[in-house]
């Protein structure tokens, strides 16, 4: 059970946040936190890819945009948003599959460049094709019906339910990833990260494992893109910019590269600050500085781990590893 300590802590914090915001009278923070949660979801996928499979992808923004734009276009055309969602996820997975198969067999920087290129293509396409909204993007995207009358939407009345939805989703992702990492496939993945030769010798099909991880990362970005688009009611070409992909990279780096919980925390905090405008015009630059700083100071990422006294309180035992 101790492996779930990060999930439990996250849930505690998630419950406490709305209490604090309503006490402080800043309920509108919940809106930005909800958005930050979706961005953090995309970062989580990248964390799995970068921190465990050891692959650099600069395409998360591209997949995010694929999720968002396909959802937006199909929903606006009248398709049930849930179906549109499925279409956008499958599209992202397919494209990741196509790019991934040849490129993952090559050295790391090839994937980095290929995904950077992919991101540039997506951005140019969504910005240049009028049918995709051009520079203004697509707006008036309908709500996403979740269950019954609960929708993913950006209205003020729906702020709290949507906060819950987003944070539940993220908690779920955290849960699922924690399960993965302590499973057979997760072990294979971690082994690839530390010694690919040993993993191969033990029978792990490393190319296939990396491909699956790449697809997972792409899908997580697409899910985030799709749902956030419904929340915001719009999407613009800026979401596809390679600069955004680099943001995700910075978040994963500062969170600890192989640290799921750290990436989540970094993703929430940094995106929230960015969305609140704290970084001003230096928004992109900040993430660049963070990336460089982390690489110099702690190339393996900061070892943000939950202090043992906290895990002890929760599970009654100390972390052994």
């Amino acid at each position, binding site marked *: 059970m101790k492996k779930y300590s990060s999930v439990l802590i996250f849930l505690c914090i998630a419950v406490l946040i709305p209490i604090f915001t309503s006490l402080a009278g800043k309920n509108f923070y919940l809106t930005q936190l909800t958005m930050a949660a979706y961005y953090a979801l995309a970062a989580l996928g990248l964390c799995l890819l970068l921190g465990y499979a050891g692959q650099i992808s600069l395409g998360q923004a591209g997949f995010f945009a694929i999720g968002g734009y396909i959802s937006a276009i199909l929903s606006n055309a009248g398709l049930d948003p849930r179906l549109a969602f499925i279409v956008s996820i499958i599209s992202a997975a397919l494209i990741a599959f196509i790019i991934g198969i040849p490129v993952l067999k090559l050295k790391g920087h090839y994937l980095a460049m290929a995904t950077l290129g992919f991101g540039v293509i997506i951005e140019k396409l969504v910005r240049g094709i009028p049918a995709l909204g051009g520079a203004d993007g697509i707006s008036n995207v309908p709500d996403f019906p979740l269950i019954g009358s609960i929708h993913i939407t950006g209205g003020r009345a729906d702020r709290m339910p949507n906060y819950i939805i987003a944070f539940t989703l993220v908690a779920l992702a955290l849960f*699922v*990833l924690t*399960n*993965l990492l302590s*499973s*057979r*496939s*997760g*072990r*294979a993945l*971690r*082994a690839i*990260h*530390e*010694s690919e*030769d*040993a*993993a*191969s*010798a*033990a*029978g*792990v*099909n*490393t190319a296939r494992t990396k491909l*699956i991880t790449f697809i*997972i990362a792409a899908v997580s970005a697409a899910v985030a893109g799709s749902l956030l688009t419904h929340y915001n009611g719009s999407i613009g070409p800026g979401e596809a910019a390679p600069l955004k992909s680099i943001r995700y990279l910075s978040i994963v780096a500062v969170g600890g590269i192989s640290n799921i919980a750290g990436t989540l925390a970094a993703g929430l905090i940094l995106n929230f600050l960015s969305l609140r405008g704290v970084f001003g015009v230096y928004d992109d630059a900040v993430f660049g500085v963070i990336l460089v700083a982390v690489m110099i100071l702690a190339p393996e990422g900061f070892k943000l781990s939950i202090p043992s006294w906290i895990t002890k309180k929760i599970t009654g035992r100390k972390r*052994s*590893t």
Partner: protein
Amino acid sequence: MDYKKNYGKEEINMSSFLSIQNLSKNFGGLRAVDSVSFDMKQNTIHSVIGPNGAGKTTLFNLIAGSIQSDSGSISFLNTDITSLESYQIAHCGIFRTFQAVKLSDRMSVIENVMLGMHTKTSSGFLGGMMLSPKARSEEAYMREEAFKALADVGLEQYALEEAGSLPFGSQRMIELARALVARPSLLLLDEPASGLNMKETEELTYKISVLKNRGLSILLVEHDMSLVMEISDTITVLNFGKKIAEGKPCDIQKNEEVIRIYLGDDNA
């Protein structure tokens, strides 16, 4: 605890357990392995020796699938495994260790050994993420087998320790456990005695002979002559990529050419 079962498949045709035919590998202009052929019989310990640069490691890696040969063939249990990649070799029941021990340092010891059960299980990403019944039962199965394998090398008390924190000799044993946990048909050992002191080498020698008694077949590349001479059933000697001698230890020790190429060679 009935862990000490027999290894290996029931194979009637003894002569084609592992068969290397005219295997060659060039690196640029260098003939690292030059048309080497030999057969290995089941349930034997077959050593490959030779001076530095003789091609032993290349030959080893060719068999293990980490590099591909230029010509020749390798067959195992009547199946051609020449062009298989290393992960596919593992699925054939052939497992190897590394001279420079390759463990996942940040994973626990037991997890490292559990990795060795990869070919015996099949639950994937989805099952792992969703905690499917299959994933959970396979996990228990892998953990149980890994624990037995660890106990077999005497390291079960370190199961939850971080693998990178253990001394080198123990790491060697963990890697061995990882290679053994899936009950290999053929075990490839890459300079297993490298970096071990006298006592550790003795323990290793004993361990290898125990494995053979359980039915395992072992191919090893090694520099330590005392180890090789003591446990080998057959020795193949390479020099400059070519096979120059093959036979039982006592024959090899008397072989003039072998003596000549080793003259002046430093051996611990």
